[in-house]
């Protein structure tokens, strides 16, 4: 039980990062019906951007008080979100809007996004470095257990708590934003029927830009969380990007709550692989099959629910 809960916490930590990134895919899919392949680089730039800012205030081996840590965390999330939003905005301007103007076929967007993705990740590598293990300074003991889950020995560490809590806060914030504000309504309007939304006085271009900005901010913040928890590099985006894309589809692409659920579910499934009963010494489904398990779950869900767990909501069900 203890072990199971430990894995569950690990899964939730990873899953909340997936969910934050998946939201970026899903939001853009909602308004454009396109997979934004370059979103993984938005995530990556969030990590680099927040490092540049955070690195100015703290350095390795510092031990800060809890309120200082909170402050730095907030600063990191904010700077990650800002950089992510800026990159996502630029991305839309350069790789999407001109193609929209020209009425390009759907796959052309995919390819321009792939081009952008190559470009951004390699530019980051050129500007900063191509090392695969850049680390944020360690200014507090990340692994200190904050509390023990009652009834078992499973613990939640500081960093896990920070990741899960900040992800949840951002997701709740986004959910409110989309369902309750005028901006949210314009996004939903464009997602459901863009020409008609324009007739209501919604500026489609602006709305799309803002959608990218919101998704980029979440992705950038996730980049900071990811970098703080693990490491960051110019090619860090690819794998989490693919996973988050899968998570978005799993939940029902275009569906915001679906992306959250899909992300958490995928993270948990991946981390629960070691607890499978047939996993053991010489067992068949060892850790090296994690990705296979994740994709099989995805395929099974899609075979039985062809539009994902929650179905499409934000985008129109064409």
């Amino acid at each position, binding site marked *: 039980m203890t072990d199971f809960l430990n894995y569950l916490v*690990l899964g939730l930590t990873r899953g909340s990062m997936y969910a934050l990134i998946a939201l970026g895919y899903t939001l853009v899919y909602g308004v454009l019906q396109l997979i934004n392949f370059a979103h993984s680089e938005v995530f990556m730039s969030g990590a680099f951007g927040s490092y540049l800012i955070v690195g100015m205030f703290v350095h390795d081996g510092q031990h800060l008080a809890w309120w200082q840590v909170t402050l730095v965390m907030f600063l990191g999330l904010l700077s990650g979100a800002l950089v992510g939003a800026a990159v996502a905005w630029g991305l839309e301007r350069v790789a999407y809007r001109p193609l929209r103007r020209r009425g390009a076929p759907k796959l052309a967007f995919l390819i321009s996004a792939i081009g952008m993705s190559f470009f951004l990740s390699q530019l980051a590598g050129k500007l900063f470095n191509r*090392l695969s293990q850049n680390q944020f300074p360690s200014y507090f003991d990340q692994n200190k257990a904050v509390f023990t889950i009652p009834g078992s020995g499973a613990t939640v560490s500081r960093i896990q708590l920070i990741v899960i809590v900040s992800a949840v806060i951002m997701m709740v914030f986004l959910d409110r934003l989309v369902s309750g504000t005028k901006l949210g309504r314009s996004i939903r309007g464009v997602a459901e029927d863009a020409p008609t939304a324009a007739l209501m006085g919604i500026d489609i271009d602006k709305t799309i830009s803002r959608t990218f900005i919101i998704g980029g901010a979440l992705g950038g913040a996730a980049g900071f969380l990811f970098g703080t928890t693990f*490491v960051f590099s110019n090619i860090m985006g690819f*794998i989490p990007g693919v996973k988050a894309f899968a998570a978005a589809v799993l939940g029902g692409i275009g569906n915001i709550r679906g992306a959250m659920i899909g992300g958490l579910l995928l993270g948990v499934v991946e981390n629960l692989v*070691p607890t499978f009963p047939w996993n053991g*010494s010489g067992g068949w489904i060892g*850790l090296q099959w994690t990705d296979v398990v994740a994709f099989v779950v995805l395929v099974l869900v899609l075979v039985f629910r062809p539009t994902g767990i929650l179905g499409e909501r934000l985008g129109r069900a064409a």
Partner: protein
Amino acid sequence: MRTRTLVNVAAMSAVGALALTACSNSTGGGGLSSSAGGGGGGTTYTVAFEGPLSGDNAQLGINEVNGVQLAIDQANAKKDLGFTVKLLKADDGGDASKAPAAAAQVLQDATVMGVVGPSFSGASKAVGKIYGAANLTIVNPSASNGTLQTLGFPTWHRVVPNDYAEGPAVADWMAKKFKKVFVVNDLSDYGAGVAGAVEKELKAKGVTVQTAGVDAKTTDYGAISQTVKQSGAQAMFYGGYDAQGALFAKALTAVGFPGARVAGNGVKSSVFTTGAGAAGNGWYFSCGCQDATVAPSAKDFTAAYTAKFNTPPSTYSPEAFDATNILLAAIKAAKAAGTVDRKSVNDQVSKTDFAGITGQIKFGPDGDLPAGTGTVNLYTQKDGKIISLGDVSKAS
């Protein structure tokens, strides 16, 4: 509008096509007689480097090519070779399928007298024959897969110890101390090789072994660390590289794994010690090498490298530096003996007995470091520094 774009495309492709033919050439040897007029003074030979200079593994290639560049620049600056040396960089992206083209690029330059590389075992397997057929000598700084020496590549040499040499030695040591071991590998050619060798030897000694593989591209080692801890193993062996090892070390500490941590030489580097920090303290490393951070020549190397490239030497930079110096010495020896061609250089390389910064280097008949000469040493990280514990077979 349309015609204009058509013309533009046509123009672009015309320029492209011209660029393609820009290298059109009669097949065959290529190149010019060694005493060319024009500008350059004296004879020029070329040392080629083949490895990943772009793509996801570019960092490794950059580490190595910097080492090669440094060796060449130092040799040219000293002016005691009697010839000038140039560097040809052939980028294979670390990809076995792109390696043959990179090899062709190396081979078509007749002044190339030797290759440092390819960085990866996969690429080495793809081009070993091609270089061999052209008599071009290979001095490999980093492809440590334990089967390479058995594949019959005629001109192949390697300055790093092979995985299989150190695997059994460290497994013997572990079998003396632990009864239950968890072996983790990174699913790479190298990692799977060394982990497999360790696993085999441990099992032969009657140790309970559990295994798992974690893709080298993973950054999250939470689940595997939890699994290792849960298994109740007394020790963990990691077959993989330093950057991932550092992440793994942190994650193991985070879950509080109580057992010993052991790793192969792929992990033993400054990347690991800086990356893992305190979590790396207490790790053991096996390595068929001398301690590169102690030897005085290595200190000079580190200083020169840092001054030139603005960053300290990293994984396999010293090995590439040594490999290049071996090549340069061989070309010099071939020149002294009369003829400098690919075959004579290869013969000289095979006869190498070279004191490099990574140790004394001599090649066996299969091109590998002979099994007996390199004693496998045990190292451990203490207070953020790697210190030697001496011969692993004698270590307690």
